[in-house]
């Protein structure tokens, strides 16, 4: 009886319960919809957040774009050091939407009244003048890899060409049996813009090394092949042309940057001339290590890009703070042969 009564009551209140359930459901749907909307709107469309942390100095990094891997590596190292020093390093070539030459970028940097300029590129007169302008405007300039001696730059950071020539010579001596050769031929791929003097320093360094260490043999005959280094494509084109035009390849090819190294390696493989010449490269990356492992590239000279990047920032900072800095900071070099390359590759695999 009581159950029946309850049933009846339930029936009579059905409409009320429908309304209650309906309202609760709708409120639920509305809340879910609103939350969904807020969630969806979340980050979308908001003004992009900016890194608001304050820097103490603003440096500009200018480099040639023919050897991206190497300079990127240096730039990253410089950025790491700059972060630690609360300095901002701007790579103007990246932030400018239009293609500017190094001189243009240099000019923009000077007009932007930056605190310092790190320059890694070809040394020529115009740049030397711009360096002077910058220094006159109170902007410190450090030069990487290729020194611009006829400018008022604050510091040069890198390996000097003589030292580099000696390292290359030592590598050559490792795999050339001088007794087999009357006079080994060496071809050095060098930037079109590199001064004659700089090239000579390398040549002399090689000669000196052999004279000193192997006085009973003829020193190798060093020739320079100037490569158009405006961009990677022109480098590749020049090196390929060399291989097509040269029937008898030199005994040894020295590559003075990573772009030359990679293009030479690629050309040797593509034109099936592996074994006809021996390549000594510059810089390390996966491709170069792989090539060393296969002994298509005999060895490579690795400049410590971390040290280079970090030193460039520290030198500029020192100049800013004290008004002077060391005019030459040497960067250590490593030679990577087949064993070292394998080890590095294994380490990478493990990672």
């Amino acid at each position, binding site marked *: 009886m009581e159950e029946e009564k309850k049933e*009846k*009551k339930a*029936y*009579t*209140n*059905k*409409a*009320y319960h*429908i*309304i*209650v359930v*309906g*309202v609760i*459901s*709708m409120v639920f*749907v*509305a809340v879910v*919809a*609103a939350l*969904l*909307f807020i969630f*969806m*709107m979340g*980050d*979308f*469309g*908001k*003004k*992009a957040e*900016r*890194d*608001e*942390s*304050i*820097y*103490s100095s*603003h440096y500009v990094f200018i480099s040639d774009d023919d050897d991206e891997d190497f300079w990127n590596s240096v730039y990253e190292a410089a950025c790491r050091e700059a972060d630690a020093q609360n300095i*901002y390093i*701007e790579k103007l070539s990246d*932030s*400018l*939407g*239009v293609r*500017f030459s190094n001189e*243009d970028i240099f*000019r*923009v940097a000077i*007009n*932007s*009244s*930056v605190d310092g300029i790190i320059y890694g590129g070809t040394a020529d007169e115009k740049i030397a003048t711009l360096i002077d302008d910058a220094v006159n405007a109170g902007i410190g300039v450090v030069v990487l890899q290729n020194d611009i001696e006829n400018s008022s730059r604050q510091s040069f950071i890198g390996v000097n060409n003589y030292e580099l020539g000696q390292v290359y010579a030592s590598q050559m001596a490792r795999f050339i049996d001088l007794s087999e050769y009357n006079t080994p031929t060496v071809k050095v791929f060098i930037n079109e813009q590199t001064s004659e003097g700089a090239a000579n320093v390398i040549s002399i360094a090689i000669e000196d090394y052999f004279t000193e260490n192997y006085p009973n043999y003829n020193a190798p005959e060093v020739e320079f092949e100037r490569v158009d280094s405006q961009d990677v494509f022109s480098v590749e084109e020049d090196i390929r042309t060399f291989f097509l035009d040269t029937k008898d390849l030199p005994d040894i090819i020295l590559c003075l940057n990573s772009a030359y190294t990679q293009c030479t390696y690629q050309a040797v493989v593509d034109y099936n001339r592996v074994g006809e010449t021996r390549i000594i490269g510059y810089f390390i990356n996966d491709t170069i290590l792989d090539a060393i492992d296969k002994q298509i590239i005999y060895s490579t000279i690795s400049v410590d890009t971390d040290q280079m990047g970090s030193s460039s920032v520290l030198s500029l900072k020192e100049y800013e703070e004290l008004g002077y800095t060391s005019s030459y900071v040497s960067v250590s070099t490593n030679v990577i042969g087949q064993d070292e390359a394998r080890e590095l590759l294994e380490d990478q695999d493990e990672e």
Partner: protein
Amino acid sequence: MKNKLNSKLETKWNNASIRSKLLLAFLLPMVLILIMNVYVYIGVNTMITRIDEIYEMNVSLNELSEELTAVQTSMKEYLENKSSVALQDFYKADQNYRNGIDKLGRNNTHDERYIMEQNIISQSENYLKMAGETIQAKRGRNVEKYKSCFEESEILYSDLQSCIYSLNNAHFKINTDNYFKLLTTLRYMEIASLVILVFIGVFNIVILYLLTKSMTKPLIELSSAANEVATGNFEVELEPLEGEDEISVVSNAFTKMVDSIQVYIHEIRESMHRESELKEHELVMESRMKEVELRNLQAQINPHFLFNTLNAGAQLAMMEGADKTTEFIQNMADFFRYNIKKINMDATVAEEVELVDKYIYIINVRFTGEINYSKEVDETVTHIRVPSMILQPIVENAINYGVRNIDWEKHIDLRITKDEELVYLSIKDNGSGMSKEAIDKVLTGHGGEIADSQTKDSNGVGLANVIERLQIFTGRQDVMEIRSEGEGKGTEFIIKIPYMEGVHV
């Protein structure tokens, strides 16, 4: 607390009028759809505002670029024609450009775009300085200087435009990413809104359907119940509805009405039943009377002839001086007249007693005064009306089956008494008595000879007839009691008639 509120709302809902319920049923979905629309509207509006904000910086950078161009153009114009208007334009443009530059961020932060803004600010200062120098040189007619300054400012102008363009590009690149994200969001929102709208739509339809169903269901049940009642079936059961809305009121009133009609019908049926029962009683009574009358007719072919004859006999006896004969014949005539006259009517107790007196007289003439008759009558009940011919047949029975064949002195006593409820008419003999079985047979109407009226010396009215008429007359079953202590110990017949002061059956 929650339950209290819930039950309070529930009661409020139950008591709400149909109009309010319907209004709520239609308003609720409408409000929900409205809310949904507002939600979509706000969403779209927010999106549009966001898009505006995204491209705000691009717009201001474009303006900055235009202002820069205005500076350069006005400077060039002044250099060409040295007009004061051009100079004015230059200063105006210079001021506008400076204002535009002021809007750029001057923070030394790590953000690429802030850095670019910083670069633009510094370059702009150099440019404006150079432009100012150019104008001054022109005004001072220093041709060489203004030429070199103009060349310098041309380079700065071009660099500045490139930088503004680059910054604009950087913003645009980020904004484009944002714009695509926004577009995706919009698409998601469109789908979500559609899904929610469809969901709410379907839900609204379901709610409306259920609500209207729950509201119309009692109405439908009421109408079908009304139809049932219209076809004459009052056995309809409607579920009682709680609440005080119109449907509940009508439904509950209808239920009450049907219940009342059922009660009336039942009462009418009962009264009809009682009436027919009464009629049936009357008919039975009448048939019994007819039966008595028939017996009389069978026994006395022509009572009038018999009375006349007896009267003639009485007169003859009177003339002859035979008083006893006269009295006898007179009593006889009275006895039969009573029989004929009262057969269809009721009589008073006194009349019945008188008839017994006359009968005993006649019988005593026949039995030569063997029967000793005594009577004791409560005079307060002599006026009570009883069916006629009820005492005489019992007395006759007492004589025929009680005392006729006994060797000892024959006594018949008539006693009429009463208590608070009943009047007792008792006829007691000291005759041969009755067994219990015989008593039961008489009382149940299977009395054989005793109960049967068909005896030779009977005046025609049997005990069964007497009992039946008494039962019909009083409406009671217990109208007669027969007491006998056994063989030879006599029998007492007691008639019980309800007695009520002022009201007599």
